[in-house]
């Protein structure tokens, strides 16, 4: 028994070292973008040439860039609102609607995980051309609602499932209508998850390239602007400065969203016995069912 313990401890240490290397490797390539964004050279190569803010200075006063930024912000806000609204209603009806239609909608809403972005892009491209407005910011909003939908559905479903059923039943027994139960009881209880879902949906849209590529008209989003700049070696440092800013914003928003999500789940589960801890597991298990 004790030999096994020591064995386990030792293998734990080796694993720990591996995990450390893994995490470093996970962050290393991306961390080069901020590193070289301060490098006083047009090439991303060693040795470093000296420290400069020059590339960040080129970001201001660039009207194409600020236009793309404005597009990304507007599209992200609207798409995140739509995806969150759908995530809330779809998962709520899936859990409390007791109807096969609601369960079907919930299953289909998670389908975009199993569709490569290129196919989501072309299917919506055909659709928006058929409707008539064609590639445009509206088209990108529709695409990003789809891309963010699995995330918001999974987050909201795990949150609603983590609220003890008794609370929902108590509200109904005390005479609250379905709508009142939803609005006055279930929504306030899941507010952190709603904020978290909105933020992650916003990030998904803000960073999304694959689908937006097909659906953009004359007004590009930020990732499309970056893509257009990648052709010019001269604009490489500017792209890195811009990338650094985007990475910083993404990290902050994602960090807040993740903290909110876990806080919310932890708070909801504290008074609940072990058998109800399942929702969080499914949620963690399914959350990565989402493609960027």
């Amino acid at each position: 028994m004790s030999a096994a313990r020591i064995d386990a401890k030792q293998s734990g240490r080796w694993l720990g070292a591996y995990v450390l290397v893994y995490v470093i490797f996970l962050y290393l390539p991306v961390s080069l973008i901020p590193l070289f964004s301060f490098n006083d050279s047009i090439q991303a190569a060693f040795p470093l040439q000296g420290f400069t803010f020059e590339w960040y200075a080129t970001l201001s006063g660039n009207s194409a860039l600020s236009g793309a930024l404005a597009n990304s912000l507007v599209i992200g806000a609207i798409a995140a609102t739509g995806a969150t609204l759908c995530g809330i209603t779809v998962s709520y009806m899936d859990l409390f609607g007791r109807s096969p239609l609601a369960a079907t909608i919930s299953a289909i809403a998670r389908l975009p995980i199993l569709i490569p972005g290129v196919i989501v892009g072309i299917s919506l491209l055909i659709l928006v051309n058929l409707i008539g407005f064609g590639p445009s910011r509206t088209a990108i909003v529709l695409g990003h609602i789809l891309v963010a939908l699995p995330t918001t559905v999974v987050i909201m479903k795990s949150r609603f499932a983590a609220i003890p059923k008794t609370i929902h039943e108590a509200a109904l027994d005390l005479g609250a209508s379905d709508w009142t139960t939803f609005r006055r009881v279930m929504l306030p209880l899941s507010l952190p998850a709603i904020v978290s879902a909105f933020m992650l949906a916003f990030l998904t849209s803000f960073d999304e390239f694959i689908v937006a590529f097909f659906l953009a008209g004359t007004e590009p989003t930020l990732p499309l602007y970056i893509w257009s700049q990648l052709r010019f070696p001269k604009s490489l440092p500017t792209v890195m400065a811009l990338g650094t800013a985007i990475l910083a914003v993404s990290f902050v928003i994602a960090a807040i969203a993740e903290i909110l999500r876990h806080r919310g789940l932890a708070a909801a589960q504290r008074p609940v016995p072990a058998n109800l801890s399942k929702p969080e597991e499914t949620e963690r298990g399914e959350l990565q069912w989402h493609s960027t």
Partner: protein
Amino acid sequence: MATPMSTIVARQPLPESRSSTGFRLAMLLPGGLVTFFLILFALGLVVFLALRGNDGSLLGAGFTFANFITVASDPLYWTVTLRSLAIAGLVTLATVVTAYPVAYYLAFHAGRRRGLLLFLVTLPFWTSYLLRVFAWKIVLAYNGVLNSALIESGIWSEPTLAFLNTPAAVIVTLAHAYAPFAILPIYVALDTIPKSLLEAASDLGARPFTSFRRVVLPNSMPGVLAAALVVFVPTVGDYVTPALVGGPASTMIGSLIQAQFGKANDWPFGAALAVAVMLVILAVVLVVRSADRRFGSRT
């Protein structure tokens, strides 16, 4: 029978069924619109278009299987499809194999560091995919980070072109970009293995490795399969990474679809390629499903 919103919120208790119907309708509407119209109808359009001839108009003309016949008979598409499958398969394998020990550590050894580590491995997941791929471009380029670092440290004297524009570059880049996708499902599967099973194994005299091979590994297979699926699907249809770091020798099926809807401007043919990709993914999903059932799905 639709009840207006205002009556639903009214204080006066309504007959259960009326309030219920309006509420249900309002709650099912947004999700229903998105799923049936944006997902199912739009996918239906792709299948429809795949069966049409290209006459330059939006929905093509006439019904034909010509697009599918071309896809199936032209060796180019076989080559590219097989290459996509090989690349996506290798990426999936690399991602899952490297992620498994991390998930194992998180589930059994992380202790107090678990929260922080989970946070660290999830975070890159929410950063820009384009930037993650772009980072590899600057690493692998001729005048790039890796070449200059190797020369700087005296290992090599000349920069090499061997890194960029190879299928290997695509595999490394994709494996890295999708690494965070694989850890969580495996972790969840490992974490939900009842501790009593492990205790039983060791009580019955199983060595740690035996109990890993006979108890932990089979019980974590649903997570491994889920991880494989979420990595495989986006990689098999990817066109960004081949375009940025792959070069012409690593054209993937996603690149061909993108070209049909862009430069080549043959939408019906592009739609047929897309349908072919969906069929491949469907086959993979079915295989994974049946394997999952064999291991006794818990998710």
